[in-house]
């Protein structure tokens, strides 16, 4: 994430499309790397950086959609722009559901591709910062004791201290003490911050 200049990866079995797209994007000033097949791309084991993947849907061997699935499951943040010679609705739905930035029909407008690339890079940046924040919150969350985590879980549901104390079978004072500790560890300036953090962490919260 140190590069400032994003790199565009093109995976297409058609050399014309591959090379022409590369030439066009190079003209705009992107770094472009091309691959003739999904397997080639996987084999390259690239370090993820700023950029996006322009992926042909239909290819011999591992198809574009298959590659996308692999990336998603690997929690890759590399945004994917699909290009296809003859796309179908189910195909595009599947791609978009899996988080594709765009689904472009060949031949595509240069601007549409550039827009998609920009969106992808923006999206990638957002995703990356969000992920960074989540990672931070997670770290903070990990600092909580288990008793504090229990109190935190109940606090963010809107329960009053007295109720929490009753539920946990302890005193209201003890709950207040935990709360202060939680606010500290979670670096929350206010209860509202704490609720927001909880929201962000929601999916990652361990089940009770």
């Amino acid at each position, binding site marked *: 994430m140190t590069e400032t200049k994003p790199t565009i990866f093109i995976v297409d079995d*058609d050399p*014309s499309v591959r090379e022409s797209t590369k*030439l*066009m994007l190079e*003209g705009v000033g992107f770094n472009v790397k091309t691959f003739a097949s999904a397997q080639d791309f996987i084999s390259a084991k690239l370090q993820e950086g700023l950029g996006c993947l322009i992926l042909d849907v239909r290819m*011999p061997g591992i*198809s574009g959609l298959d590659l996308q699935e692999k990336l998603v499951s690997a929690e890759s943040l590399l945004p994917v722009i699909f290009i296809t010679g003859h796309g179908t609705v189910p195909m595009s739905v599947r791609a978009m559901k899996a988080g594709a930035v765009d689904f472009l029909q060949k*031949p595509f407008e240069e601007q549409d591709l550039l827009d998609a690339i920009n969106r992808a890079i923006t999206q990638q940046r957002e995703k990356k910062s969000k992920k960074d924040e989540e990672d931070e919150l997670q770290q903070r969350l990990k600092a909580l004791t288990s008793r504090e985590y229990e109190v935190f879980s109940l606090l963010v549901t809107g329960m009053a201290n007295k109720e929490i104390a009753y539920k946990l079978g302890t005193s209201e004072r003890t709950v207040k003490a935990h709360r202060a500790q939680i606010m500290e560890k979670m670096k929350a300036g206010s209860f509202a911050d704490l609720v927001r953090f909880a929201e962000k962490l929601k999916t990652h919260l361990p089940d009770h």
Partner: protein
Amino acid sequence: MKPIYWFVCPALLLLLIFQPLYGAEPKEAKRVLVLYSEDKTHPAHEMTEQGIQEGFRSNPLFDVQLYTEYLDVSRFGDPPYARAMADLLRRKYSGMEIHVIITVYPHALDLLLAERPALFPGVPVIAAIIGRSNAENLERSPARRFVTGTILGNPVTAVMDAALHVRPKTKHIALVAGTAPNDSYVEQGFRFGFRAYATKIGLIDLTKLSMEETLSRVGSLPPDTFVMYASILRDGAGKSFVPRDALSVIARASNAPVFSFSDSYLGFGIVGGRLVSLRKHGREAASLALRVMRGELPASIPFGGEQAYVTVYDWRELKRWGISEKALPPGSIVEFKPPSMWEQHKKKVLGGLFFIAIETLLIIGLVVNLHKRRRAEAEIAASALRYRTVADYTHDWEYWSAPDGAFNYISPSCERITGYSVRDFMDDPSLFLKIILPEDRGTWDGHDHDARDRSKPQEIQFRIRTKGGEIRWIDHTCLPVNDAQGKFLGVRASNRDITARKKAEFDAQQQRNELAHVTRVTAMGELTSSLAHELNQPLAAIRNYANAAQRFLSQSEPNLIKAREALEGIVRDDKRAAEVINGVRGLLKKGEPRYRPVHMNNVIEEILAFTRSDSLLEGLSIETELVPGLPIVLGDRVQLQQVLLNLMLNALDAMNKAKPDLRKIVIKAENEKDGGVRVSVRDFGAGIDETHREKLFEPFHTTKPGGMGMGLAISARIILAHGGSIQGENNPDGGATFYFTVPATTESKGPPGT
């Protein structure tokens, strides 16, 4: 006319021509003087004369010239008359030589002998019909030296016997005679003859009576009497008669049968009997004369006449007197029998019958002939009718053309097929050639229509324009006609209207093409994504290149190298797009197959390029093993690609339930054993269900829910049309392999690397 007549007729004609030569054979001329006692009207003379003439006529040696004199001594018998007569004869015949004299009756002889030697001295004499007493006198006379003759003999016995034979109970005979010397002479003969019967039979003397008296006497004769008529030249009243006329009158008046001695009286009232034949006497006299002419001396020739009799009866008299013919002596001749129709017209009838018979035979012959001919004609007509009917009712247009090109026969079907009638073709034999379409005249001219020694029929097909302007297809078969001797008799031909068949064939071909097109379009429909992809790829590239080029050129420092690279890309992908479109157009195009020499590897690569990234084939790995340098095959590129496409789509279908990593097709092109190319498409799917195996290539047989069942059927038809074969079989290690072969062209093998 039968041939024999042609020979006989000229032969007869020759005989007629040469007959005068026969007649011209020299015959010695002999002059014979015949002296008759009585006058010319004496009937007995007439008969004698006939005999004389007959006797001479048959002689081959002499040309006898007869001179005849009637002395009429019965009526003018006195000596002065005899002298005058002799004088007349002497004067009359003084200028010529008489070789023989025949005298008839004794009186003429007596006159002649009395006047000799002054009259005809030395001339031999034949004394015909003289009495025995005369003859006896002559024998004693010197005259016998030059006289011979025939003796009348005694006719009475013969007559009497004959009369008594038919009238055995006779008691009386009435003798009738006149007063002339000859009458008396005969009467004496009778009287002499009667003496032998005088004891049994009484004589009624009716001699020397007047005619009236005679008639009255014969009309009232007692029973059991017959009349014996001697002769009446002159009756008792001095009246002259012709003896047989007198006999007629007497016989009519008589109440008893009348008999006499001479056949000269037969027919004038006598019953008949053994009669003296004066004719025979005449013939014998002539015969004697001829002997004398040949040199015999009269003295050495005995008197004849013994046999000069004839047994003859008058039928009318037999009837009149109730005498049965059966009572007559054997060998008797019955004359004056009213001739039966048969006898009367025997010759005419026989002739008529003969002619009728001949005519009948001829008619029968003609009728039979006619019948035969009619039957033959009928058979020929029936036969002709049969054959004509067969020919006329043939559906095809038959003809037989003569060596000169004219038509011997044309079946009426020609009108149905061509619109022109039989007459049209007969009148103008060139019409046939005129109606053949000009484009097809080459076909006609190219076949051996007039070959004379061709044994196999020739068959060609061409089109004609009918009278109505319609085009019709004709299947023409022709064969030369030769007779048993090998003579060329023209050409027999059969023309069949195969327009309907041709149209059906054409329609079927059209339908097949249509169906092939439909399945191709169906297959193409299934591959639309592939089509779009194939076109969009180069289009996308072009647009990218164009954008890049614009950008490289619009920079403050234009990057010309990159711009050129971009533009080259544009050109390259534009070409590629055009190729895709051409390929698609070819695959979608309807039409007849066009067989061209093609490289099978190129055909496979083209279809693979086209289908490379179709969504249907997505995830399908297609491997190729194309042996370089395969023979060039003669084939229709599009059709072969259709077959490949069908096989690939089938392979895909077979593998739609297979794991993705097993979804693979292997396409091989390799040398076929006998010089062609073998292409196989192998899949790793479920394989061919054995229950469907036999019907794999049948139309409308499908295992796919939405399939038409035409893919393999059409593929099989296409490969068969290419002269190849197509088969499918399961692989030992799973899946199926379909393969087809296409024979190589006769041309050289393709260059290596294709």
